[in-house]
């Protein structure tokens, strides 16, 4: 096959393409080279880590792709973490998952686990011990992980689609394009916060709203936030990025004085003038906050938190809030995380209060990636901007966005209770 692109391949790339590294590497390189041409890349570059989103079971074709690579003997060339799967192996029978789905989603897990990968099964790989560092070239899938890696860690990845992430992992190569290159990492749009109360900036509820706003405005451009006075936690930045990568295609952002490539406003824009400036007021954010709720009434069937996957710190915070309380028997309380964080929670002593409250801990997947929710579950509440954005369309539910305190109070009351530590309006 001829490639009519200006792409320059190294000798090793050509050897992979010729099959000298085995048939799986050859297949991965064949796909990668064609894609590099479409990206307009002139060469491939070395990556030193990968994160695979193709683990999510969608259907037969994705499974056949994984099993084809596995049967050809695919092994990853760099440390490679795995995103959520389509199955909570420990708990799927407690939910509406069919055995046919479970069997196929499990086969897909087995295929990707067979490639020498690290079975993290999480959408928050940046909260594992193998997170990438400033300047590191990586190939990551999963939109929330991509934006966190670029913005918060200063690692460098493009938005890799499912199926291509694994080709990068197997070859250890990625197209030298987009956010891999220094000159493409500067800001495009300036978002200046105007009179946003610092007390609000310090709270968890602020960040999914700011992220949703940022995504709607920026699309796939790079927003820069200025005048943030609070020092957001890792979990708050995680929530912000996930929301921005849902309402928009944000793969990178800067917060002046907070994120590593934005020590100053000038650094965030790489010395260039912003193409567009927006003054962000409390009124504008309040409108976005209201838009995250679609519920028309106070009915409540379940609370879901942990999108992206809950960290140990978030599990501990929730455990402290539910201590001594009991959820209403008609309201399910779903916490999504991964097996490692559940083990950490057990060791830290915060698993018991969560279970005593009646939390159901869903591992290694999420409510959007596995068909676990029975269709009778119609009304949802969440702290997650990403869950709030996708759930009405994907799960056909009505959703209420609120604070963790509101979620707990609502789960106890058996209906949506607002106003406990709520958004200032």
């Amino acid at each position: 096959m001829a490639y009519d692109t200006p792409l320059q391949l190294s000798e090793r790339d050509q050897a992979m393409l010729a099959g000298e590294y085995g048939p799986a590497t050859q297949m991965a390189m064949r796909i990668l080279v064609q894609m590099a041409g479409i990206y307009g890349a002139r060469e491939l570059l070395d990556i030193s880590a990968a994160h695979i989103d193709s683990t999510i079971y969608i259907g037969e074709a994705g499974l056949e792709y994984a099993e084809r690579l596995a049967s050809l003997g695919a092994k990853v060339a760099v440390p490679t973490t795995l995103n959520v799967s389509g199955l909570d192996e420990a708990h799927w029978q407690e939910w509406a998952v069919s055995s046919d789905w479970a069997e196929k989603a499990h086969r897909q897990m087995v295929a990707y686990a067979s490639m020498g990968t690290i079975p993290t099964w999480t959408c928050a790989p940046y909260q594992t011990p193998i997170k990438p560092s400033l300047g590191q070239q990586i190939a990551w899938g999963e939109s929330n992980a991509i934006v966190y890696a670029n913005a918060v860690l200063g690692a460098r990845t493009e938005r890799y689609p499912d199926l291509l992430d694994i080709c990068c992992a197997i070859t250890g190569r990625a197209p030298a394009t987009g956010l891999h290159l220094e000159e493409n990492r500067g800001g495009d749009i300036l978002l200046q916060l105007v009179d946003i109360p610092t007390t609000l900036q310090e709270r968890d509820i602020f960040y999914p709203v700011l992220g949703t706003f940022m995504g709607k405005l920026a699309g796939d451009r790079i927003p820069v936030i200025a005048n943030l006075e609070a020092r957001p936690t890792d979990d708050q930045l995680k929530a912000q990025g996930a929301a921005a990568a849902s309402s928009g295609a944000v793969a990178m952002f800067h917060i002046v004085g907070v994120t590593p490539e934005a020590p100053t406003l000038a650094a965030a824009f790489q010395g260039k003038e912003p193409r567009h400036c927006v003054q962000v007021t409390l009124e504008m954010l309040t409108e976005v906050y209201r838009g995250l709720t679609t519920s028309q009434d106070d009915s409540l069937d379940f609370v879901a938190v942990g999108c992206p996957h809950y960290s140990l710190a978030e599990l501990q915070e929730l455990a402290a809030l539910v201590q001594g309380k009991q959820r209403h028997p008609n309201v399910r309380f779903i916490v999504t995380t991964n097996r490692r964080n559940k083990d950490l929670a057990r060791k830290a002593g915060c698993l018991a209060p969560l279970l005593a409250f009646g939390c159901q801990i869903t591992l290694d997947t999420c409510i959007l990636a596995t068909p676990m929710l029975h269709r009778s579950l119609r009304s949802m509440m969440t702290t997650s901007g990403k869950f709030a954005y996708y759930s009405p369309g994907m799960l056909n539910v009505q959703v209420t966005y609120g604070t963790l305190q509101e979620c707990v109070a609502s789960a106890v009351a058996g209906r949506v209770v607002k106003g406990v530590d709520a958004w200032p309006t």
Partner: protein
Amino acid sequence: MADLVLQGRPVVRGVAQGEALISPEPLSFWGGYDFTTGEITDRRHPLSGQNAGGKVLGVPFSRGSSTTTAVLLEAIRAGTAPAAILITEDDSFFALAAIVAREMYDYRLPIIALTPADYARLATGDCIRITEEGSVIVTKE
């Protein structure tokens, strides 16, 4: 007798023929395309409710989720994919599905990029034939 012959740029080469389904709005296949039927299910999209299986689908680019690639690949395998996709911007997510479909199933799904001006001359209901070189041959209703 063709009414219009446009020269597109083949992002992924292939030949196809079908009735056009054209929209100015980008589309996410994840949550927007039912691969079991070929129906466009994004209720905010102008083509919502239309079946794109076997049609020449025009959407300027794919929106949002990177899982669009996986859903399009499922549609190809299930026989519910469009016959071709016309775009106005290089879209790596559509292209990847077409490249993997060729690798896995020896299946050709042409992805052709048109200039916005040429794209604007197409309408739903046109009969479109696509050549290996990326020519888009249009017969109006």
